[in-house]
């Protein structure tokens, strides 16, 4: 059976679901970040697959480059926040960090 567009879309959907589960259920802030990375990768797979199967050129690939750029910025900022959280609360458990002022 030839691999078509739907195969890639289903792969992206499964990856999105796993990332969503990680974002909702894990308590470690870094694992939540990993869930976000999985979701962004799922979106990128969809973009590149659409770019391949619509015959309109490389627009989807250019948009996926922007997604990668934003993922880098997000990871840097979020890790700065997580390090700050660790300095203030001595934990990265996002349930423990429930005060705005110590």
């Amino acid at each position: 059976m030839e691999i078509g567009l739907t195969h890639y879309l289903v792969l992206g959907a499964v990856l999105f679901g796993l990332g969503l589960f990680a974002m909702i259920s894990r308590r470690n802030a870094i694992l939540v970040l990993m869930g976000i990375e999985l979701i962004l990768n799922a979106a990128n797979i969809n973009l590149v697959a659409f770019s391949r199967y619509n015959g309109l050129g490389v627009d989807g690939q250019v948009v996926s480059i922007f997604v990668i750029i934003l993922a880098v910025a997000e990871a840097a900022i979020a890790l700065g926040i997580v390090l700050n959280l660790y300095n203030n609360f001595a934990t990265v458990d996002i349930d423990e960090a429930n005060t705005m002022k110590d």
Partner: protein
Amino acid sequence: MPYTTILFYALALIIVVSAVMVVFNKNVVHSAFSLFFTLFAISGIYVLLKADFIALTQIMVYVGGILILLIFGVMMTTKVTNVELKTKNLNTIPSLVFSIGIVTVIIFIIFSTKWNIRMGLDSEETVTQIGIMLLSKYLLPFEIASIVLLVALIGSAMFARRIKD
């Protein structure tokens, strides 16, 4: 069976299995190293989709940058020699049901939509086209992305700084 089919299923298997290990592993460091395999196999998927530039960018940026950053984060915020490394899950059953529900809806939509598939030209190299696109049609987002990166650089340096009392 053409070899691309075998390759796709092998890569998809690696992606899904290691993503499941990322999500369900109790040890944070193991999750980070499973994410390594996921990102590498996704780069292989891009090669199958004939997006060579995106595949290389994926390896350089995700595997070489973001993953190293995440492992730094794990190392700096957990006591590696301690039992602290293990984390618990929260509301596993409701979030599992929610995620599976959303994925089911998405897959139902994928299979019930009639996609308008047209194959483009295969032989052209994508790097040239992407460069032309970035400097013509997508020039404004490209410039804004550079500003976003600068702001993220300054902001994360400010966040991560230790404030002296």
